[in-house]
């Protein structure tokens, strides 16, 4: 518990935590509401979205879908960066050395970091939900729509959001530990989340096995889960797998990333 408190204190007071959360909230509002609102009011090109789809995507009762659809790619990338920075920076600052000589077992120290990151991620998803809900209510009121608050059905997309966020957090932790620094971890993570999987999807159009693989890669699994719980109209959201299958893959990734990272942390010399 002491390790979680320690990590939470330092992550809570870390400007990078709030900068990244702030950037994500601005992105979520801009792409989820502002652009859709402008398109609805005088936009000349609304892509393949009908007016009814735009209105539906901004309804307060659909805010759960609005939260989850941003996480498979851009939201996930931001969470990955946060986790990779939180873990990788400790090597450059020498704080891992201080942490591991303070008393707790290495497993406890890792659990403290992961536990604190989990709290931060829950805060991020909760803030996204609240900010999106506020935006949705504002738009609905401005437009004079009949609207209602989201019902219990919102639990499913929010739970999916947390699982997707947990996977990206695990990926960031894994990269931070493997590369023993923040720069390479962030670079590799961003490249994977935004470039590599998209390139593979492109190749998948030509090669069947690659296409099958892309559906179950970390981003693909996240996109499929988001698609299965109602997320749509955002980059990275897919509809190739069932929700349960996608969720199981994500759980597998969380276990693999955090398990491998912990094993490396416990067994490797800190020089």
């Amino acid at each position, binding site marked *: 518990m002491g390790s979680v408190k320690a990590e939470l204190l*330092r992550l809570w*007071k870390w*400007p990078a935590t709030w900068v990244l959360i702030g950037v994500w909230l601005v992105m979520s509002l801009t792409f989820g509401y502002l652009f859709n609102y402008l398109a609805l009011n005088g936009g000349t090109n609304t892509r393949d979205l009908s007016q009814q789809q735009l209105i539906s995507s901004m309804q307060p009762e659909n805010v759960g879908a609005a939260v989850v659809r941003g996480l498979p790619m851009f939201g996930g990338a931001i969470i990955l960066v946060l986790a990779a920075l939180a873990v990788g920076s400790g090597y450059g600052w*020498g704080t891992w*050395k*201080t942490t591991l000589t303070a*008393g707790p077992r290495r497993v406890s120290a890792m659990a403290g970091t992961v536990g604190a990151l989990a709290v931060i991620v829950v805060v991020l998803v909760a803030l996204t939900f609240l900010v999106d809900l506020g935006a949705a209510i504002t738009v609905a009121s401005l437009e004079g729509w009949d609207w209602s608050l989201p019902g219990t059905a919102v639990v499913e997309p929010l739970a999916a959001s947390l699982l997707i966020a947990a996977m990206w957090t695990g990926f960031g932790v894994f990269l931070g530990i493997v590369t023993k620094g923040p720069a390479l971890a962030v670079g590799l993570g961003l490249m994977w989340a935004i470039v590599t999987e998209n390139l593979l999807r492109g190749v998948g159009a030509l090669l069947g096995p690659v296409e099958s693989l892309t559906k179950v890669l970390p981003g693909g699994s996240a996109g499929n889960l988001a698609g299965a719980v109602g997320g749509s109209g955002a980059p990275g959201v897919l509809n190739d797998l069932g929700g349960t299958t996608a969720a199981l893959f994500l759980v597998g990734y969380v276990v693999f990333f955090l398990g491998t990272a912990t094993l490396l942390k416990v067994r490797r010399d800190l*020089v």
Partner: protein
Amino acid sequence: MIVTTEKLTKRYGDRAVVDEVSLSVRRGEVYGFLGPNGAGKTTTIRMLLGLVQPTSGSARVLGEAPGTPKALLKVGSLIEGPGFYPYLSGRDNLRVHAHRRGVDRTHVEAALEQVDLVGAANEKFRRYSLGMKQRLGVAAALLGQPELLILDEPTNGLDPAGMADMRDLVRALAAQGQTVLLSSHLLGEVEEICDRVGVISQGRLVAESTVEQLRGDTVLLIRADPIEKAHVLIEGSELRGDVLHVRETDAGALIRTLVHADVDVREVRPLRRTLEEVFFEMTGVA
């Protein structure tokens, strides 16, 4: 014994960075771990703290295996400079560390007072001078009143005033009965502060004893005229050019003997090997 190692060895490939080091640190002493840069001091210390696993050999720290919570909670350490979060204040960094060590806030304030950092406790760590950073590192090491303090090159990078401050701090801790393992390549520092010294060179412990024992006996240097007569008069004296070296501590008796024999005594002074000379002899560093 607070720390014992038995043939402690760390190899990276074929290279033994630490080679069968057997040392012991006694309760209440300031133990100087002396060696040139790259001799294996920090690797040995990292093994004592469980940060590095030995290739062979064993170590016990306060009766426990290194790196276990039981051992670590009784040890405070500062290794190769302090590792703190640059965006947190000194006080918040200590609070983070206190959570990990399971000690409450009162210890944080006490540690800040002990290293004289209360006035700067709310400043961000990144704005601290090097000396303040090192002192914060010592404050973190003191949290929870450890039985053993391990300080690895605590004066590295400090200006002369900062070095003097750090030495005073270690002296004050030693005066309170704190056991300290102090690694350094600064001979004067070790000579001034430490009770016993272990000298490590190229990974091997080449000597372990008190500073006095390492420096050996005092030799008297005598200039006299005629020097040959003085040489004959003083049994066991060694003529080196125009001076005599005598392993004798009763200078008064020697002078009386020479004066009674009509030898003009021009200079008598004790000559003692410095720790630096001993160190260079042992480590082959010049």
